[in-house]
């Protein structure tokens, strides 16, 4: 399957741009109404990277939480009963 990247029409580029813009959250959409598709792509990439970083950060916070959690705590008991384990 050959790449069609170099033969996208202007109309398709506009559709692309509006679709990309709709993927961004409100906070990032502010300055994006008249930028190029390339800029939108960059912003999308930056957004995904920030989401990955958040997962990373929340993972280590959960890990910290876990180290302070006792296995017999009421919360653990509740979770266990929900999961049926």
């Amino acid at each position, binding site marked *: *399957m050959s790449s*069609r*990247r170099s033969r*996208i029409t202007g109309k398709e580029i506009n559709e*692309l741009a509006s*679709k*990309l813009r*709709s*993927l961004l*959250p409100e906070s990032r959409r502010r300055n994006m109404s008249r930028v190029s598709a*390339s800029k939108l*792509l*960059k912003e*999308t*990439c930056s*957004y*995904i*990277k920030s*989401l*990955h970083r*958040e*997962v*990373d950060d*929340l*993972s*280590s*916070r*959960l*890990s*910290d*939480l*876990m*180290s*302070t*959690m006792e*296995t017999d705590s009421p*919360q*653990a008991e509740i*979770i*266990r009963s*929900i*999961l049926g*384990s």
Partner: protein
Amino acid sequence: MKSSTRNPNPNPDTPRFGPSKLMVAFRFLRALTLVHRTAPNSSNAARSRRIQRAAFASMAYSAGPRRAWSRALLWRLHFHRARRLCAGRSRAAGVPRRPSTTRSPADELRRLVPGGTGMDYCSLLEETADYIRCLSEQVKLMQSVVDSGGPRGR
């Protein structure tokens, strides 16, 4: 491929097609319990990596094979798991590596979205939209688990 639309909780926030939030939460909590139970004495860094893997795993399992990104993640997770069992350590599966500064933005996006390489533009955008949606839901889920965990040391 039949999408799962049956949901025990008629939650208005649940997308019509795609994983229910409840299912993702259930999977993730179960994975967390497993991590806690099986590695209580491991280092925070190691446990953090396991939790991160669990996050991507529960995302991907819940989305199932209907999406290219979830298929790619599932493949990566299984592949890395096999390598881990056979050999020594390997970096957290499911997480894109090698942030690139020399690629075009489109190529960068292909690398960030699992399964994105070799995909046509239209499909790439479809996958990106779904991936971003599931990823931000996962972040919200993890944030709410952290919030309900209470202050440290209680």
